[in-house]
């Protein structure tokens, strides 16, 4: 006999009831008055799957329902009359060694996905997009930037053209999947900088050009940006952050009113991590680019060092500052300059700004 509540399905009245099944005859009686509420011969019962210790429902053909907290009794009843449905889930959920093993598996899978799976998947997908589509895209991004943070370049037209020709003479356009173009813009906000758009557009800021004391330094930067385009970094990073944001929302999105932080933080930190990987890849590309063109890789070191001095005017050489820099590394989109320039060797030129 199982004690619980009986609901007819047509009214919300709760009957304190007891259910019994003997010789194929199912009886639901009112606990107090002993009045028979339901009598079924060889009934078809739908017993809800056990979820933790929540109330269990036994539904009958006529739409009525018996609910009870006596889960063990229902399990016994179920074993007698019907094959248990989804009971293996409850079994899994209540064996701690299994839970621990599953937890360990999830942690390993998560780690592997972040470390290898997601980057590899994004890379595969990014190369699946035909190069012709990239060529068309991205110009709208530059148009948008021209309206907001970029101004026309102040550099003389001849200087721009000379640099453009110098850079493009070093590459074999036919061997690249995306045609490369070079532009110059002035931007106070961005300072000395260069960036690449997925369409094959490489943009130098005036400050960047003025910061160099040898054009080969700009060639080194050009090589780095070329790496970003050839390796499809923009698109790969878009895919990666979408996947991570989506997964985080699915797993823990609704736990907190402050949900943006919960979703935003891992997305941001992993994005920074991936971004540093991309910078390393682009650096490697630049290194080989300079070597193939018989240019001293040290030009990369010299321009990077100078950029760092410009971006960080107070250069306190204390160990405290160095520690701070190292911590900052985890939150920054670029690896530390010191690490980046290692493979490029000594600075090629020294000059006073």
């Amino acid at each position, binding site marked *: 006999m199982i004690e619980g509540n009986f609901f007819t399905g047509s009214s*919300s009245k709760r009957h304190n009831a007891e259910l019994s099944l003997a010789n194929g005859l199912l009886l639901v009686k009112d606990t107090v008055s002993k009045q028979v509420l339901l009598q079924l011969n060889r009934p078809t019962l739908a017993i809800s799957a056990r979820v933790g210790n*929540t*109330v269990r429902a036994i539904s009958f053909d006529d739409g009525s329902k018996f*609910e009870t907290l006596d889960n063990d009794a229902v399990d016994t009843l179920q074993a007698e009359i019907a094959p248990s449905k989804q009971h293996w*889930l409850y079994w899994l*959920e209540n064996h701690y060694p299994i839970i621990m093993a*599953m937890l360990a598996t999830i942690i390993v899978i998560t780690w592997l996905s972040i470390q290898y799976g997601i980057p590899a998947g994004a890379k595969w997908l990014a190369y699946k997009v035909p190069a012709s589509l990239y060529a068309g895209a991205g110009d709208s991004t530059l148009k948008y930037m021209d309206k907001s943070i970029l101004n026309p370049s102040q550099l003389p037209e001849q200087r721009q053209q000379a640099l453009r020709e110098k850079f493009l003479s070093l590459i074999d356009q036919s061997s690249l999947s995306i045609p490369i173009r070079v532009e110059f813009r002035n931007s106070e906000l961005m300072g000395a900088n260069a960036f690449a758009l997925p369409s094959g557009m490489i943009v130098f800021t005036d400050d960047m050009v003025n910061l160099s004391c040898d054009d080969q330094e700009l060639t080194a930067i050009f090589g780095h940006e070329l790496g970003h385009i050839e390796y499809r970094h923009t698109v790969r990073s878009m895919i990666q952050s*979408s996947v991570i944001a989506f997964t985080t929302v699915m*797993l823990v999105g609704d736990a907190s009113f402050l949900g943006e932080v919960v979703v935003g933080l891992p997305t941001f930190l992993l994005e920074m991590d991936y971004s540093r990987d991309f910078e390393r890849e682009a650096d490697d590309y630049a290194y080989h680019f300079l070597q193939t063109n018989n240019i001293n890789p040290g030009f990369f070191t010299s321009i990077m060092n100078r950029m760092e001095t410009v971006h960080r005017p107070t250069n306190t050489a204390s160990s405290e500052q160095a520690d701070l820099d190292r911590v900052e590394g985890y939150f920054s989109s670029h690896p530390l300059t010191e690490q980046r320039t290692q493979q490029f060797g000594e600075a090629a030129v020294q000059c006073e700004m």
Partner: protein
Amino acid sequence: MEKIDPIIDAAGNQTASPASQQHHFEFTGNGSEFFRIWIVNILLTIVTLGVYSAWAKVRTKRYFYGNTHLAQSTFDYLADPVTILKGRLIAVAILLVYAAVRTINPIVEPLFFLFLFLLTPWLIVRSHAFNAINSSYRNIRFNFTGTTGEAAKEYIAYPLLILLTLGLIIPYIRYRQTRFTVDNHRFGDQYFDFNARVKSYFKVFGIAFVFMFVIGVFSAIMIAAVAGYSAAEAGASMDSQSQQQIAASMMVYIPIIYLFMAIIGIYVYVALLNLMFNGISIADNQFKSSLKVRSMLWIQLTNLLGLIITLGLFYPWAKVRLAKYRLEQLSVMATDLDSFTSSQADQVSATGDEIGEVFAVDMGF
């Protein structure tokens, strides 16, 4: 299971008809039990490449509904995982198309959000309907009968007036949206009734606005102070010490400003939940919600901290704590919970609910 409180409060005000009883909602779930359910759900979802997620959703919902007690009975979630799976597949397909197109042409992004914005009324109606029809209490189902047209009025037409009225209409819009949601919900054949006053909505938003204004002034003063300090240093180039001082003071002010913003956010969240539930009645049974800003802030901040420290593994406890607090502050002044009768209900597709979930459209109920 149930606490029965005297219906006459200390001031001698009779808050409901003499025959009414206060039934408190109670939540009996616990974090470690839900943790195990969650872990199995995640693993099976990974192993099945996401297909199991629909079953996981039903199991999670059943855990939360089944642990929600009111007047010696619990709630039940009856959705069919296959229906949810279909909805999810459609939602994922839309998301993939969007992601692919966005990659190729960023201009598509605003168009896509415009499309999603225009789709919102339909999503809201579908989502409410799917959730309601699959929820039952005492073997009687809920239902939602609002139409897409009505939803379009509340979620698109009225919000268009926000700019025109410089935002002054926002509390009224919020009131109308809540009224739309509540009034169109049904338990059995009885409709819920929303009886909150518009004035209360203006009060909540007004208080939030005043506090935001104070914080705005406070930040402006801080910025001015820092700028003034920098100006005083001008002439001589700034040494690293003064820079570090500015950085240090910003490290103090910025978290304080964030904390104040969080408090205001929680205040609005709590006040709107209380306003909604205190405004809900059904057949002479009146809901009552008494959430407190301080308790909610504590739960939310500790949940956030727990999630960060455990890299997300605290999630089951966070979700249970929030549900427990929200439900245990909720009660019904009931005259009669036994006389609701069922109504014929149609099956509703899950697509709306699932698309809404994927794109995190706020359903607010």
